[in-house]
């Protein structure tokens, strides 16, 4: 059967912060360019919506680019690329000003200037905020602003299953229309991936159901390396049970972490955060909480397991309500605690992937015309540990840059041979149709997902060691084999969410393969990758990025130099 072909100059996959910013950048640069935005959800459902605490950019007189740059380099445990970081800090204030012009309701000082708050690992107040619903407000401002541009054509609820690559040049994507159940080709002369991270590979995560590493897996299977995948950020304060995020802004506004004995353990014991205490970087605080748990100073309560407390009771109702109202709303709703009166139970939770699609400073990948931005990319801003509030800004800075670069590329690019793309598309449509029609499987989707989640947590948790990581490497391969026998109950075409779950599971398995493969060979502790068997950072042997290439015989791990600059690696102590 003939597959339907749609054409745009530029195709953007994903409609969250980075994808929308890329689309707007292209639309503003050249109104004659047509943009196809393909997203598996309506854009305002994208996970950017769940970000809470803020977006970082120099705003105050007591701050400068040098300080934001150094904080980010140090936070990255010297694995961030310093050229990328310098570009980022300079662009950040301009991007947040644009969001202001586009209607984002930034919280204000009395004089009408934008208010900023303290955040972990940042040496001064540089986190812009709109109470504690910053991702929500940024996403809605971006989406609503994007509606001005008729040349941005949206394909909502369409799931990309394959990148179309001809030689080493991108030609577009194959996508399943979830509502109709049909496959189409969306062709373009450049493609930007902005699909977010893959936290749902883990059992306990702040991430929404849609965070399944789709773009990372698409690029990986197309031959692009995934970079620094072993670095997974555990946010210190997730609600037990659900993993719902309680923002770092709660500590930025003065909240304390306490153990079962009521001690402020970050002050009582040396966890490397010094006088920063609760405003230390996330990797260090998550480790501190796990150590408190292991030392028997945590609380154990029913299904919630072991946890410590985030105490806001000294802040007072007025401050909580005006600065962090969502913290109160979420605590009441999901753990039945009003933080005005009682401490919130919390524990470290998988939050963010520093790793992702290997890109250069312009978002470019090893495939000509293919770009990536936001959490799905690893532009090497975050290195081994991201500082809170840098990632929303990252979506804007590098979303815009990759969009502009994609436009530049598209202007000089040719169109592919449509007949061969059609035949490739027909093959892909056949693969997806066969999967949907499959009646032979015996492996339940939920069972495979649970097996994957369990092994990722046991091998790639806050603390890791050889035996468990190797077990995860092996288990992921075993799950990959079992996946061949996955059971599909739903064979219908219209809005078949089970088929989507299967495709998502396959993506999570592939990125987990890269993640575990990189984790096992990095025999040092750096940032969020903490090895009990190699407790120190080892610049002699490991001051480099990890790359993982897909190969039919198994993942191939290699290295890539870090771009250093004015800041030489030094001991990371606060």
């Amino acid at each position, binding site marked *: 059967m003939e597959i339907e072909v749609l054409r745009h100059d530029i195709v953007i996959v994903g409609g969250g912060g980075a994808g929308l910013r890329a689309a707007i950048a292209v639309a503003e640069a050249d109104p004659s360019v047509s943009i196809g935005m393909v997203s598996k959800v*309506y854009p*305002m459902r994208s996970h950017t*919506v769940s970000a809470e605490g803020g977006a970082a950019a120099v705003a105050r007189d007591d701050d400068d680019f040098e300080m934001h740059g150094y904080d980010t380099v140090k936070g990255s445990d010297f694995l961030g690329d310093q050229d990328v970081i310098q570009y980022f800090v300079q662009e950040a204030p301009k991007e947040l*000003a644009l969001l202001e012009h586009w209607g984002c309701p930034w919280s204000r000082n009395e004089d009408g200037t934008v208010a900023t708050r303290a955040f972990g690992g940042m040496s001064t107040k540089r986190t812009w905020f709109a109470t504690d619903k910053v991702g929500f407000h940024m996403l809605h401002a971006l989406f609503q*602003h994007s509606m001005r541009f008729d040349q941005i054509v949206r394909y909502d609820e369409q799931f990309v299953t394959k990148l179309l690559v001809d030689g080493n040049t991108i030609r577009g994507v194959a996508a399943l229309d979830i509502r109709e159940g049909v496959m189409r080709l969306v062709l373009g002369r450049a493609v930007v991936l902005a699909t977010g991270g893959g936290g749902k590979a883990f059992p306990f995560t702040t991430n929404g*159901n849609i965070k399944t590493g789709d773009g990372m897996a698409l690029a990986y299977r197309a031959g692009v390396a995934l970079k620094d995948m072993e670095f997974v950020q555990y946010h210190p304060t997730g609600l037990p*049970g659900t993993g719902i995020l309680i923002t770092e802004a709660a500590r930025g506004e003065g909240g304390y972490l306490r153990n079962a004995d009521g001690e402020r353990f970050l002050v009582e014991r040396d966890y490397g955060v010094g006088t920063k205490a609760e405003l230390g970087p996330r990797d260090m605080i998550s480790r501190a909480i796990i150590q408190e748990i292991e030392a028997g100073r945590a609380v154990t309560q029913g299904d919630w397991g072991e946890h410590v407390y985030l105490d806001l009771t000294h802040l007072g109702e007025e401050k909580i309500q005006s600065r962090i109202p969502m913290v109160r709303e979420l605590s009441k709703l999901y753990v039945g605690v009003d933080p005005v009166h009682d401490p919130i139970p919390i524990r470290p939770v998988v939050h963010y992937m520093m790793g992702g699609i290997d890109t250069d400073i312009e978002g470019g990948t090893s495939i000509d015309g293919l770009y990536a931005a936001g959490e799905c990319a690893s532009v090497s801003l975050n290195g081994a540990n991201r500082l809170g509030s840098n990632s929303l800004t990252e979506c804007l800075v590098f979303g815009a840059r990759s969009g502009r670069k994609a436009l530049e590329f598209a202007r000089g690019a040719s169109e592919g041979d449509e007949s061969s793309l059609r035949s490739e598309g027909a093959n892909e449509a056949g693969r997806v149709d066969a999967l949907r029609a499959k009646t032979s499987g015996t492996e339940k*989707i939920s069972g495979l997902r649970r097996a994957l989640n369990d092994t990722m947590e046991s091998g790639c948790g806050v603390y890791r060691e050889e035996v468990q990581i190797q077990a995860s490497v092996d288990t992921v391969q075993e799950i990959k084999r079992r996946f061949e026998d996955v059971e599909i109950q739903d064979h*219908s075409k219209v*809005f078949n969410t089970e088929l989507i779950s299967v495709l998502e599971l396959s993506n999570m398995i592939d990125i987990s393969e890269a993640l575990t493969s990189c984790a096992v060979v990095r025999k040092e502790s750096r940032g969020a990758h903490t090895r009990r068997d190699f407790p120190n950072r080892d610049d002699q042997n490991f001051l480099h990025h990890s790359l993982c290439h897909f190969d039919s015989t198994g993942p191939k791990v290699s290295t890539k130099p870090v771009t250093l600059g004015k800041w030489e690696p030094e001991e990371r102590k606060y």
Partner: protein
Amino acid sequence: MSDPPKKTFVITRFDPDVDEVPKTQSYEIAVDPDWKVLDAVNYIKDEVDGTLSHRWSCRMAVCGSCGMMVNGEPRLTCKDSVSQYGDTVEITPLSNFPVIRDLVVEMDGFMDKFKKVKPWIIRAKELAAEDGPVRQSPEELEEFKQFSMCINCMLCYSACPVVSNEPEFLGPAAIALGHRYNVDSRDEGASERNAIFRGEGTVFSCSFANECSEVCPKNVDPAAAVNQAKFNAVIDWATGLVLPSGEKE
């Protein structure tokens, strides 16, 4: 420990390729008292019947995906505790929307209504990034803040008696959004939006039922927005008779 309580979920099923009309299917499952209604639906999807289709993502009441009718009321199911309901819980797709499949409703019409109110900042002179942020006092922010909290969950459209009779009605969320920009001190597009609001099927179609504000899971109070928008649209028209440009003071 006693066995966890069981509840029966009676869920609307509809696959347009097979069914002429929607039918219902019952699922009896053990429920954790801490569950939200969404957790129960997800459990059924994962462990009992993989053919059930519904939308969800954030499970923290901010992405707006998981609106459904629970015992006849529009609810955000990730926010709606399962233990408040009796032994039988009826779940149907959001009212006043065409159904695509099972609990999934068609929302393109809803999205089109948003675009109609020009939900973006309109200024006579565009600003550049280098101009930096515009000042806005905390009081000016307060004017529109509440109306900027809408998560587009569509519950208000399910509750609205006007939408049910007049599907083309712009509706609570879209009007609240247009109003949100009209009362933002940084915006200069109120006269354009007020002209839209004075057209057919917008603010003057509202019957003051207030159902929208009662079901809103984020306390946006769209009914208040509609009332204010109505008033402003009239004032704007009257002022326009005197000041032809209808400009903002």
